[in-house]
């Protein structure tokens, strides 16, 4: 009993906590459980097990939601700003083009063309240059074919010098084994330059997205790599690609033209081969001597020969604007703007479609929501006020559309709405409409609104019904007994109480319709399509996924903003999906 008085001394009133303390404590230390562990620890251990069990139970759903909902949304958000294809495909070009002044009317200098040559050569070997062409074609029409043609003809650049080099000695510069030995610094090179190889791997990895791991059977010699860095790097790229992507033996494959061009350039630039004593030193000296008489390689001229487009400053301005790994270009595009050469500018008027489409989508979704309220409210009212048996039968009729395919229902509307369709025929037969002036109910906004109102109507009726079901009829009676007419009683007493149902139904219908695709596609024609149809077009036809992602992201943001506004104005607590 002394424990009891000790534990409760100084407390205003005993609490259940005190009870535990009294039961478990023999001293003034922490409260202990029956087995001697501190009570807090024991409690948290018990709770942890419960929490773990709960977590395990929801784990399948959690993972499913993460994988199928969160991850796609995040990846879509990222894709809408992702522009890594440009710096990944043209890393050297992007780094040297910053020295060029895009506002000057002249073309970039030789180093930019030189960098472009090496970037594109590797890209065309890896067949990645056409993807970049497609990407840049969104910004400037014609770049796709320009990249395609340059990829075809890159081999021809510097043909004369290469021929001269190969003619210099037999079995040397056209011999793959000689190249292999030269670049690894002889058979038993002591010093190797792993770094060049790693850079080549990293570059290819960024370019293709493949891992490029595994052995190459080739290690660059440190001395030759120091003497001829560009050649070594190009050869390393060749070696990595040949060994890993093409699964060939490096020593048995003739190096790419880009390797030879790099060698010629570096020898002409005066690489100090006289002090070099490694494998092929003699041949290098001979080559340097011979090449001194050869003309310098002019990449700018060669590119202009292949395609005049490379002489167009626009091309270079476009590349310059889109050189960074992230871009606001897709979002600007989605808002009918573009990244001009002098900053953000509006698109030409005949290309402005997205704002109009967004506005139309919002407007038509509002109209659809409104007509769903107008049509659904009386139905829900009747359902809620009928005896349960009858209401259940009628409810089946409301739900019936859910049991038929959406495509079938929409196609059925096509049958009904067309100019020779059921509705027009009946109207003509009844004499309401002249045979020559049949109503155009389809392939325009009217068709979309009619069909989508029908399809989304259950989403309005169900929440309305479940809310109305909870409003006792005595409220209306009370209002009438207090002197209100039927109309006043309805508007002042019943309607305000059904607003949560209208709110829930409206949110459902509006959000569903703002992203609707199938119905506008089938009955919408051109005037009745939604933004989602444009998104689908960019996903499946134009393959401009970045723009599709930007449009989708804007749609998501618009919905979230509207939801927020709704919460501020109506209050999300005022939304009821059921009793």
């Amino acid at each position, binding site marked *: 009993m002394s424990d009891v008085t000790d534990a409760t001394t100084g407390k205003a009133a005993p609490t259940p906590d005190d009870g535990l303390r009294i039961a478990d404590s023999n001293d003034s230390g922490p409260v202990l459980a029956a087995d001697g562990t501190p009570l807090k620890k024991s409690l948290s251990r018990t709770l942890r097990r419960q929490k773990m069990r709960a977590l395990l139970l929801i784990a399948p759903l959690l993972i499913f939601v993460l994988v199928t909902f969160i991850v796609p949304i995040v990846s879509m958000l990222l894709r809408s700003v992702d522009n890594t294809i440009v710096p990944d495909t043209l890393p050297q070009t992007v780094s040297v083009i910053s020295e060029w002044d895009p506002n000057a009317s002249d073309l970039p200098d030789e180093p930019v063309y030189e960098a472009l040559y090496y970037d594109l050569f590797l890209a065309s070997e890896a067949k990645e240059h056409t993807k970049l062409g497609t990407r840049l074609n969104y910004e400037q029409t014609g770049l796709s074919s320009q990249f395609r043609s340059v990829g075809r003809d890159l081999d021809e650049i510097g043909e004369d010098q290469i021929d001269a080099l190969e003619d210099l000695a037999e079995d040397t510069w056209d011999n793959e084994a000689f190249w292999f030995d030269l670049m690894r610094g002889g058979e038993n090179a002591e010093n190797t330059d792993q770094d060049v190889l790693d850079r080549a791997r990293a570059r290819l990895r960024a370019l293709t997205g493949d891992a490029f791991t595994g052995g190459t059977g080739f290690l660059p010699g440190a001395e030759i790599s120091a003497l001829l860095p560009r050649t070594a790097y190009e050869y390393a790229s060749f070696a990595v690609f040949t060994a890993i992507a093409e699964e060939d033996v490096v020593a048995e494959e003739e190096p790419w033209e880009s390797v030879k061009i790099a060698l010629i350039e570096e020898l002409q630039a005066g690489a100090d081969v006289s002090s070099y004593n490694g494998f092929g030193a003699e041949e290098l000296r001979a080559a340097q001597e011979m090449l001194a008489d050869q003309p310098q390689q002019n990449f700018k001229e060669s590119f202009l020969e292949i395609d005049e487009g490379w002489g167009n400053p626009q091309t270079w301005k476009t590349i310059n604007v889109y050189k960074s790994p992230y871009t606001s270009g897709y979002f600007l595009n989605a808002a009918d703007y573009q990244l001009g050469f002098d900053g953000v500018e509006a698109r030409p008027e005949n290309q402005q479609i997205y704002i109009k489409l967004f506005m139309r989508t919002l407007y038509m979704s509002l109209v659809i929501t409104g007509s769903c309220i107008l049509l659904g409210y009386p139905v829900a009212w009747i359902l809620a006020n009928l005896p349960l048996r009858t209401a259940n039968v009628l409810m089946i009729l409301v739900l019936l559309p859910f049991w038929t395919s959406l495509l079938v229902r929409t196609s059925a509307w096509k049958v009904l709405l067309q100019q020779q369709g059921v509705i027009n025929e009946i109207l003509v037969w009844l004499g309401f409409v002249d045979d020559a002036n049949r109503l155009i109910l389809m392939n325009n906004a009217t068709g979309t609104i009619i069909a989508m109102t029908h399809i989304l109507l259950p989403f309005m009726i169900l929440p309305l019904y479940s809310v109305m079901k909870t409003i006792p009829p005595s409220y209306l009676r009370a209002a009438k*007994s207090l*002197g209100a007419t039927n109309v006043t009683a309805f508007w002042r007493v019943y309607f305000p109480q059904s607003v949560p149902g209208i709110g829930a139904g409206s949110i459902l219908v509006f959000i569903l319709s703002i992203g609707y695709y199938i119905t506008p596609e089938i009955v919408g024609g051109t005037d009745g399509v939604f933004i989602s149809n444009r998104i689908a077009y960019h996903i499946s036809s134009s393959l401009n996924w970045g723009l599709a992602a930007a449009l989708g992201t804007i749609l998501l943001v618009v919905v979230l903003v509207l939801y927020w506004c709704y919460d501020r104005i109506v209050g999300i607590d005022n939304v009821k999906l059921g009793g």
Partner: protein
Amino acid sequence: MTEAQASDAFVAFDRVQKSYDGETLVVKDLNLSMPKGEFLTMLGPSGSGKTTCLMMLAGFETATHGRILLDGVSINDIPPHKRGIGMVFQNYALFPHMTVAENLSFPLEVRKIGKSDREAKVKRALDMVQMGDFGGRRPAQLSGGQQQRIALARALVFEPELVLMDEPLGALDKQLREHMQFEITNLAHDLGITTVYVTHDQTEALTMSDRVAVFDDGRIQQLAPPDELYESPQNSFVAQFIGENNTLEGTVKEIQGGLAQVQLDDGGIIDCKPVNVSEVGERTRVSIRPERVEFDKKRLKEGTHTIKAEVLEFIYMGDIFRTRLSVAGNDNFVIKSRNAPDQTRLKPGETIEIGWLPEDCRALDAN
């Protein structure tokens, strides 16, 4: 009831019938008239037609046959909102999306009463039910008793002459209910309003009403002031329904000078007052209240018939003793005796003689 009576009364039902399905009558030939200012309770088991009567009066149900008169005018064809009858609903039906003050001003608004007038009336009505500080609250923020007061205030705020209440206290706990019974009666009498009150709680009916109409099977079984109803039930149903009651069955042996002798089925003879019996040999059910049964011979009149009873159970209830007896084959014969110092405490197994004043024992119909 004659036509003349019906038109004099403030509220009158004249041969009213009601059927929902066209096969059975829920209300059968209802005649009722109420003077102005009366507090009348419709009491009866569920399904007896009392709520239907109230709804017909309020205008939410139409009478299949007959007339309902309010102040001499037939209101059969007047829609509910033009009848000007205040009503308190079972679940209060306070509008949840309005504040208390808005709820109260609703009937005034629809009557196009000016704003300042409205506010004054709302305030007065709230003060009347001692809820003056709650005008800004929502109904959901009030307790059951408070909601009840607001519902009452709302039914009274537009000063109706007739107020209907449909089991308004059903959802309250016992203590609050008793308190509200008192308040409602006081309010009704102070304001001089005519009130029709529906309940299935007989205590409520007896304590509150000027007159009680006992409903069963779509008819008024008895319409009388509470004391008359309790002490002089006109038939078995009323006797059974109001208060606790002992019954014994038997045959009328003799009727003479306002007294009847009934021979019980086990042969015993008792004295009673013939109410629903008129002929010798008729079967009858005799009704007697537990507190009017005496087992002390000194308190009985000379020559009163007594019968034998066996004590089965003695229950001490504080203020009273409740003793269950076996009388003439009825094992549920109860007597109640006051807990006084000289009161005898009966013991189970004892055999005693019981009797009563003939006028306390009523020979009713055998149904």
